[in-house]
């Protein structure tokens, strides 16, 4: 049993067995992170290009560290300092990259479907590190890894994803991933931020935060994407925070061992109160830590995949 695909573009296309293989491999990779010498030669001679069209700290750093710990050569391209700033199209950037024979390209792009477009251009493996409001599969995988690490299992657990579901690629990837491994998923948020027909993904829909978090094992708060909020989806930050911010008093209505997750970066005091984010059940920093192990696992597994054309 191995991963035979060239690219990782979306959680929607992964099978439950593939998800389990990635999580199991990540467990072994996490052990490497605990060593004095954090380097293994598995990807020696492979080249990894991080191509980021959007700002990112943790995802880009996490891929960079993962690549370096596996001995790959890692190159970061950010759009502000590259030809993209001169107006080069994604297609031309892709062809330019191809000429340099990378083995793996990690792409973050504001347009949904950009990773799939690039994957068709390149012989290299493409990993989607977030494409518009579509998917962010490696975030979902590291979230599943963190949940499994804390709870010992995934099947039968109940999760509530709270916030701007409509704009959230993290929500979409997690919904697909959690459903595949047998978790129950709820989404909650203001009605303006819940996409039509979201229930067709097999989730329960709530517009009341307290009811949504009442008996779940995991609460996943989404970042309010203030940069995407020109459309007047809610009257004010303060009102959003009052109705959908996770605060200590609100948490009293949840299970006593509930786990709190957030993909980061957090808006302290908007969607999550500081004392919750820094509290004992918060897994926010575990998520960051596990992100490296999960990405190491993916780089390792994809590096054995057959290269197209």
């Amino acid at each position, binding site marked *: *049993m*191995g*991963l*035979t695909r060239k690219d990782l573009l979306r959680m929607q296309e992964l099978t439950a067995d593939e998800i389990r*293989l990635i999580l*199991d*491999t990540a*467990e*072994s*990779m996490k*052990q*490497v992170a605990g*060593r*004095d*010498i954090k*380097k*293994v*030669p*598995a*990807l020696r001679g*492979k080249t990894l290009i991080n191509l980021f069209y959007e700002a990112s700290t943790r995802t880009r750093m996490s891929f960079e560290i993962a690549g370096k710990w*596996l001995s790959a050569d890692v190159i970061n391209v950010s759009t502000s300092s590259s030809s993209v700033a001169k107006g080069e199209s994604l297609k031309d950037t892709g062809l330019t990259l191809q000429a340099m024979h990378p083995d793996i390209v990690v792409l973050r792009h504001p347009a949904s479907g950009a990773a799939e477009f690039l994957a068709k251009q390149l012989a290299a493996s493409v990993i989607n590190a977030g494409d518009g409001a579509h998917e962010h599969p490696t975030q979902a995988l590291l979230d599943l890894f963190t949940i499994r690490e804390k709870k010992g299992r995934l099947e039968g657990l109940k999760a509530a994803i709270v916030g701007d579901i409509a704009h959230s690629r993290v929500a979409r990837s997690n919904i697909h991933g959690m459903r595949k491994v047998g978790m129950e998923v709820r989404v909650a948020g203001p009605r303006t931020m819940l996409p039509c027909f979201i229930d067709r993904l097999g989730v329960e829909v709530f517009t009341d935060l307290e009811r949504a978090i009442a008996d779940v094992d995991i609460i996943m708060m989404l970042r309010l994407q203030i940069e995407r909020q020109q459309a007047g989806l809610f009257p004010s930050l303060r009102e959003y925070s009052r109705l959908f911010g996770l605060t200590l008093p609100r948490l009293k209505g949840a299970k006593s061992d509930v786990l709190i997750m957030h993909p980061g970066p957090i808006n302290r005091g908007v969607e999550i109160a500081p004392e919750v984010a820094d509290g004992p059940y918060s897994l926010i920093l575990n998520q960051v830590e596990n992100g490296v192990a999960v990405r190491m*696992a993916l780089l*390792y*597994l994809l*590096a*054995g*995949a*057959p290269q197209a054309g």
Partner: protein
Amino acid sequence: MVRGFFYALNLMAAELNEKAQILDQAGIQRAVTRIAHEIVERNKGTSDLVLIGLRSRGVDLARRIAKELKIIDGADIPVGTLDVTLYRDDLGRVGVQPVVRKTEISFSINEKRVVLVDDVLYTGRTIRAALDSLIDLGRPRLIQLAVLVDRGHRELPIRADYVGKNVPTSRQEQVQVLLTEEDGVDGVLMVKG
């Protein structure tokens, strides 16, 4: 009737050809005991000794050797588990990547006498990977190698310090080590390729 006898003999010969037993349960036990005695003799005791088994049958053998060492010298020798997948020299050359399992060594190997334990010594490439991996984990005082079966055909300048049994083989043959812990039965078989 005579024809029936030869027919049966032929069948048995074919069976033997396909799977010849090199060691049985008692043979494996004797080899493990002898290796344990040789380890004590060569290292003049068991101080600073640790055993590290290669996944997966090497780990079972390392535990058996540790049990014998306890009988011989009375000391509890720590046993660790090494997975060398990330150090293999054939990664990315075959289609699907091999499964990576955990390395579990809960003690420091610095300044220790490390005995690596594996079931079969063949090309030596696994041992090369294990040596690189161990050296990333610390700086042992020395590393020795114990194997249950040495079947020859080395591709690297590596030799074992302790050998259960030397078995001349051809490259077409396979050596299968079965251990109760993994396979429910003890035995070493040679299978014609």
